[in-house]
């Protein structure tokens, strides 16, 4: 009896305690592991995305599974075909009891089970008809993934998205996916894509090659000789490097060490500053010694970006990132570095000293942020906006800090068209597929990715001529070979087909256009990953067209 009473007291006590501090909501807990990759800003972008996937085959549902699980806002499958026996065998989201029913509807209902907060829609119209009658349908999506369509429909879709966009920046991103047996191909059409955070693995520079004045003064004030052995062992490596380099510069006209021998000499002089030889802070300093002679520069990608017309000629309608970039170009004209990011790495020292150093870096970062804000003000005024409106332009203090933290990782990718574009439309960096192939051929080598791509083209040629997939027969192989020879001859290549090409043609014939589980799993992962990069504007997307070759367990990219 006493026990019951006591147990009750506990229960009451537990209930009366105010709800626990900082307990995350259910959504945060569900998405915990991915929030650690793309943060809540990325998650918000996913949750507002509307994705269209055309056709409900195995690769399509594999891709969608990987987008529904992390919680995209909404998806639509556009597919007019019914579920077949073969579908039920190779597609985990189509079952035998759905045979004969709409593939779009069946797949949507099974995929929707994966995540309650994602809306799924089935559209059972034929993509051809929609392109014909309602091309604006496609413009309502955030991203479109077209899987195993004919090249002709791919081209028309790509064209519809280009002509429907008011500016290149507004073009709905299109991912083109083709699979056949152990091969797959992923191409993209994007208008303009900005990566706001590349999540570069390179830590921000501490600029120790040229320490900022307050850091230099701090280091100078520490007299190593007067420290007892405990203090001596806790001088942070940042300070040791600043001191060692200052000594070096005094003896070398203020120059950094350049040759390997000079660098080694500087490193030896650092070693000579030790007392016992096993001080942990010196071990760290020696490991970080390269920071003394690595000159702080504006990364070349950033520099190239700053001179891009999209940055130099911004208008009042430009997204905020371009205001920031213009401000950054003003900043780097005055300084030869990016604004300081106040992240201090791990080091062996006392907590107090660490906090002191951290404050030094923060104070310097704050000073530079104010200089950057002056540059930003100039940029705002250049497009005849008023600085007082900065918050409404998305240029508030919080956004400024966020931009500075990611500045080195900001990228802007220029438009990339898909398909048989008119010669006049081809930009310098945008090579026509066959031209790229020919370049490879003329260089004397035809790497496997290009051969696989050629095989995909020939398979499409076959399909448009015969309205069926090639089969692994002598006759079909012969036809594929003829198409390949023709395509290459059109580009001026008259030699024998390279072995990589004949192998690839053989595999394409053997595949009979099949969507096999291993390829679908891998391709579905790859396509969803790229889609997430586009949607979150984080991480650098794959460059060019990606070829998956699972016979050789590899991927490659082609420059278009």
């Amino acid at each position, binding site marked *: 009896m006493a026990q019951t009473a006591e147990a009750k007291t506990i229960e009451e006590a537990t209930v009366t305690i105010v709800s626990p501090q900082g307990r995350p909501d259910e959504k945060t807990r569900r998405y915990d592991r991915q929030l650690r990759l793309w943060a809540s800003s990325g998650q918000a972008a996913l949750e507002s995305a509307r994705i269209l996937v055309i056709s409900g085959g195995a690769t399509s549902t594999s891709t969608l599974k990987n987008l529904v699980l992390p919680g995209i806002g909404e998806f639509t499958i556009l597919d007019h075909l019914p579920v077949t026996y073969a579908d039920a065998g190779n597609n*985990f989201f189509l079952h035998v009891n759905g045979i004969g029913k709409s593939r779009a509807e069946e797949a949507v209902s099974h995929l929707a089970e994966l995540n309650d907060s994602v809306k799924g829609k089935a559209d059972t119209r034929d993509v051809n008809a929609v392109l014909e009658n309602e091309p604006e349908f496609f413009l309502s999506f955030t991203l479109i993934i077209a899987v195993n369509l004919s090249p002709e429909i791919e081209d028309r879709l790509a064209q519809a998205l280009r002509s429907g966009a008011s500016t290149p920046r507004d073009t709905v991103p299109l991912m083109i996916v083709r699979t056949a047996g152990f091969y797959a191909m992923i191409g993209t059409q994007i208008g303009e894509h900005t990566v706001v955070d590349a999540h570069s693995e390179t830590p921000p520079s501490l600029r120790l090659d040229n320490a900022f004045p307050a850091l230099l003064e701090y280091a100078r004030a520490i007299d190593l000789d007067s420290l007892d052995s405990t203090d001596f062992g806790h001088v942070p490596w940042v300070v040791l490097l600043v001191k060692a380099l200052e000594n070096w510069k005094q003896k070398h006209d203020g120059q950094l060490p350049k040759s390997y021998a000079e660098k080694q000499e500087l490193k030896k002089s650092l070693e000579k500053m030790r007392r016992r030889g096993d001080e942990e802070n010196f071990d760290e300093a020696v490991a970080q010694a390269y920071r003394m002679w690595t000159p702080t520069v504006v990364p070349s990608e950033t520099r190239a970006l700053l001179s891009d017309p999209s940055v130099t000629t911004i208008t009042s309608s430009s997204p905020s990132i371009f205001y920031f970039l213009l401000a950054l170009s003003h900043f780097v004209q005055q300084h030869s570095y990016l604004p300081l990011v106040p992240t201090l790495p791990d080091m062996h020292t006392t907590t107090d000293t660490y906090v002191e150093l951290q404050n030094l870096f923060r104070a310097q970062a704050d000073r530079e942020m104010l200089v950057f804000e002056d540059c930003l003000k100039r940029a705002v005024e250049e497009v005849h906006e008023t600085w007082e409106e900065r918050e409404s332009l998305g240029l508030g203090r919080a956004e400024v800090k966020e931009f500075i933290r990611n500045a080195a990782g900001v990228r802007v990718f220029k438009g990339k068209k898909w398909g048989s574009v008119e010669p006049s439309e081809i930009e310098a960096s945008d090579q026509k597929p066959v031209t790229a192939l020919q370049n490879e051929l003329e260089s004397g080598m035809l790497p496997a990715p290009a051969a696989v791509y050629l095989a995909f083209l020939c398979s499409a040629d076959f399909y448009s001529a015969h309205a069926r997939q090639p089969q692994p027969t002598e006759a079909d192989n012969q036809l594929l070979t003829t198409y390949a020879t023709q395509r290459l001859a059109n580009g001026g290549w008259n030699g024998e087909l390279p072995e990589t090409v004949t192998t690839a043609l053989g595999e394409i014939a053997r595949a009979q256009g099949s969507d096999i589980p291993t390829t679908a799993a891998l391709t579905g992962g790859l396509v969803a990953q790229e889609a997430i990069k586009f949607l979150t504007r984080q991480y650098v997307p794959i460059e060019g067209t990606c070829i998956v070759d699972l016979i050789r367990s590899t991927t490659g990219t082609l420059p278009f």
Partner: protein
Amino acid sequence: MGRDAYARAILGKDLFAQLGNTRVLLVGAGGIGCELLKTLLLTGFGHITILDLDTIDLSNLNRQFLFRKKDVKQPKALVAADTAGSFNPACTIEPIHADIFEPRFDLAWFSGFDIVLNALDNMAARLHVNRMCIAANVPLVESGTAGYMGQVQPIVKDRTECFACLPKDTPKTFPVCTIRSTPSTPVHCIVWAKTYLFSKLFGESEDDDAEFAEALKNGENPTEIAELRVEAAAFSAIRSSLSSPNAPSLVFDKIYNADINRLLGMEDMWKSRTPPVPLDYTAIRARSFVLPERKKPGTVKTTNASTNSKALVNKTVNGLKNGKREANGSPDSASGLKDRKELSLEDNVELFASSVQRLAARQASTSQPLSFDKDDDDALDFVTATANLRAICYGIPTKTRWEVKEMAGNIIPAIATTNAMISGMIVLQALHLLKKAYHLIRSVYVRKKPHSPLGTSTMVPPNPYCAICKDVYVPFPCNPEIAILGDVLRAVGVAKAEDEDDDDDEDMNRTENEKELREAYVYEGNRLLFEPEMGENAKKTLAYMGVTWGKSLIVTDYEGKVVNLVLVLLPLPPDQGDIKPFVVPAQLPPLPSRVLPPVPSEPLTPAKSLKRSAPEDEGEVDDTRAIKRIRTEGGAVKAPTGKETNFREENGVLILDDDEDDNVIQLD
């Protein structure tokens, strides 16, 4: 077109038919496991055994697509088999909710599979399955993912590197006194809260004696250890009053007041360290507590330092090292999500009180010991609050609940996409292995390279110095209760100890044959059971020494001339169970000569070089690799074979001769 038409066409008739009869073991039903099970079913594998020890948590659902919200807390293996099984009734799926280390999963059991696929999340289990597959000569595909990165490695004995051929990073460890008395970083406080305090209050009551003895042997301060013994003993009193309503204040007063005050009494300890400050539960809750200024130790030194650098020259706090993560601001710091909020002293105390009561109530209702789980909110609340309060005592920065979770749980980011790619690659390599198309198998890496998302490398032959896959494994049917170690050794050609059995008649007249017996060390895991100079264990039964079915005896040649002989213990055939202690294989396989790792030409500089690699050290050869291997591999630890003077041996564990504190507490 039939249901399997595509698969048959692309795999070929023969391989497709073979798959129907293939027995595959899938170890792990987590992120990779779910994807794999799906892909295996679709590919046409006929018999799948899926094993996992875990139950489903809400945070699994963003990628482990065979589980739904209603399945939370159910065993992963069972739910996965149930959800996926309906897809292809032609396939038999055997789910096992168990630990792969259990003795019933022995050599014979592993031998029953055609291929093993690892989808594991921890190093110990990976090394274990690797060893079992090498011993059973079953091909293995090993895999792992972390965020956007992933890796697949096919493993075939004698053809490829095994999982242990390259050294793996050892878990981070801390000395006992750092954790219990003199923490200096947030991670020290979190380890204390998670591995010590949590289990003291709610977990399996463990015996500290072994740990303390080990710490003393490692040269930790004996006075401090004596104090810690007292402190630990007092926990049993606290535990018995956990169900009382004032449990939070009892616990708080003990750990943040009484224990801190006792530590403060050890004045020697604070001569060169900033001493901690005790906290007052009642005062904090009444909002009348003022955190006292921490007293600085030592004397103030005079220098010409500017005001900026005062702290460095005026204060001496020993051994402080700032945790890496406090330097990198969380990308979400501005997001306003609740568990990323900085907690004040009062917040922490409230969180402490409520989590103690919740955990105490749970324990009272089940009377089962609890164990820390990062996804258990009560446990995480408790660890967050207690670690932060300890940090406040010691003047260490506190952490948000989000950060504590990552540090305490060793959380690795995980998403569906990488797992999907990896599972496709695993099945692909498995198909190559089943076809014995060894020229096609590859190690594959998923990485963040815009020009080439997959990295591929051809297979590397086994490391000749590998301590796992170069050994010779022999199934050894025995009854450990009656099998005597000395008899076993003699039966496999190893001599008993020289100084042993002086009164034994047999030994008075050794036969010629026996003189040919070789001398050896014998290990079970890392435990040294026997060596020629110290042979009393030779008279004991295997079971007495804890060597039972599923475990192995590793026989290491005394002179290091031949590779190890590993006797893998199995049950005796049913008809011989009670009569015979063991059955010696009719013919023991020959033991190949051991290839010796190159002896470094000059003495190695201290262990520091093992811990940190200098990124710019152009042209320096990594001569530490062979030594590092000895220290880090998870399986058997080898006796030194050369004459390196850099080693000393202790309890069968090789320790590099340095004065580093050695591994005592593990942060899993």
